[in-house]
């Protein structure tokens, strides 16, 4: 009985949301020819903007590299303050709550904020990536810290090791592979996040995508998009290969 009313409520929520957002299969079907036309107008890609696209892609990559690295370093101490088994109860509570608040906003929202604060360009993009990465990685790291096996740590204590030695030989070997894996994964997602930062003036390849679409220069836009797709695929491939070797 309770079960049925639960499913009914979920169904009602979906139907209500679809109705409110004007979901209409008919309009989708009507729009189909326009989509084809859009794609047709994007072809063939315009090779003359390739240099521009590559420069934009490189900048996106650089935003992701710096943003991920700095974010990861900032996340490290926060993670220990957000893990149940390493933080005092009050610190744990406040850190976790603060992380949840900061994580409620995505990179793009931070980018809007930092563009307003420091002006246009890749720098506000880097700052946005740093903030979001730090909060996400702090959460992921803290979960790895909580999942740590206390028994080997005890074994290192039992040989008469100092606190630093216990950290180096009991804790670090358990955490570092997870930390690196999470960081690489975050780097992959940061490339995608950084690709749209240009929409709000925060640097990278997104600026060219938005500009050429606005100028209705579809062949140029398609060159830029192709460069983006290739870059994301190459980074994903390399990064997931690396991650597979870590854990």
């Amino acid at each position: 009985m309770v079960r049925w009313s639960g499913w009914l409520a979920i169904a009602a929520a979906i139907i209500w949301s679809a109705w409110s957002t004007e979901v209409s299969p008919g309009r989708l079907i009507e729009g189909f020819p326009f989509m084809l036309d859009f794609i047709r107008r994007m072809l063939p890609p315009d090779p003359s903007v390739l240099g521009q696209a590559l420069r934009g892609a490189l900048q996106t990559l650089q935003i992701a590299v710096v943003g991920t690295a700095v974010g990861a370093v900032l996340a490290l101490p926060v993670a220990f303050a957000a893990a149940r088994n390493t933080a005092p109860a009050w610190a744990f509570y406040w850190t976790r709550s603060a992380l949840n608040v900061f994580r409620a906003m995505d990179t793009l929202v931070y980018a809007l904020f930092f563009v307003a604060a420091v002006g246009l360009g890749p720098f506000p993009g880097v700052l946005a990536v740093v903030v979001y990465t730090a909060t996400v990685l702090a959460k992921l790291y803290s979960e790895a810290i909580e999942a740590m096996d206390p028994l080997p740590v005890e074994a290192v204590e039992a040989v008469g090791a100092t606190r630093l030695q216990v950290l180096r030989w009991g804790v670090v070997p358990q955490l570092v592979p997870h930390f690196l894996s999470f960081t690489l994964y975050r780097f992959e997602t940061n490339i995608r996040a950084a690709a749209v930062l240009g929409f709000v003036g925060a640097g990278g390849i997104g600026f060219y995508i938005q500009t050429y679409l606005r100028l209705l220069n579809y062949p140029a836009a398609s060159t830029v998009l192709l460069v983006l797709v290739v870059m994301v695929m190459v980074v994903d491939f390399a990064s997931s290969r690396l991650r597979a070797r870590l854990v």
Partner: protein
Amino acid sequence: MIRVRGLSKRYPSGTVGLDGVSLDVAAGEFVALIGSSGAGKSTLLRCLNGLVSPSAGTVSVDDQPVTSASSAGLRSVRARVGFVFQQFNLLKRLSVLDNVLVGSLARVDVWRSLLGRFPAEDVERARRTLKRVGLEGVEAQRADTLSGGQQQRVAIARALVQEPRVLLADEPMSSLDPALSRSVMELLRDINREDGLTVIASLHVLDLATTYGKRIVGLRAGRVVHDGPAAGLSPAAAEAVFASDPAGEPR
């Protein structure tokens, strides 16, 4: 060598771990600590190297106080006491050799150990010890690629490179099958005989205790209820150690 006086441990949950245990162990003894699970065997062993701090009573090892020790004092006691755990407690991702080198941490320079640069003599000692426990040629393998019996040998090697005065073993074979249990117990007996190392091993299998121990100490509900040579352990005495208390309360 080991002096225990009036040792009691009450856990925050109210569980009584130990209830007034006094015990002397001389150098070179092989003591088998028997008792059913929850009798206090683990708690007693862990009090001997300060992994558990007792509620009352004193422990000294080699005339060094354990219970009242500063953190530096406790480290120096632990350096001389090898501890072998039921679940081996190896660092799974580290190589076998690195796991054994952990045993030399208290001896080597702290900064070099943090960089992972152990002195050549310590590396040599670790290799020699691995050979002694019957593990040659697996030094570079990850610890978790070994079988349970092999992992326990790595753990014993880790304790031996400490060059300890005492070896404490907490149910060292209970994660292993019977044949492996015997080989681990034989290894401990050889170490006791050849090096004159004092060994205290808790065992819940009576058969292993009487075969390998020279002296049997029986614990029940946190108290010593039997203490005597292994040869003289009567079936009735053994039964009394393992008999269950109906209420589960100390008598």
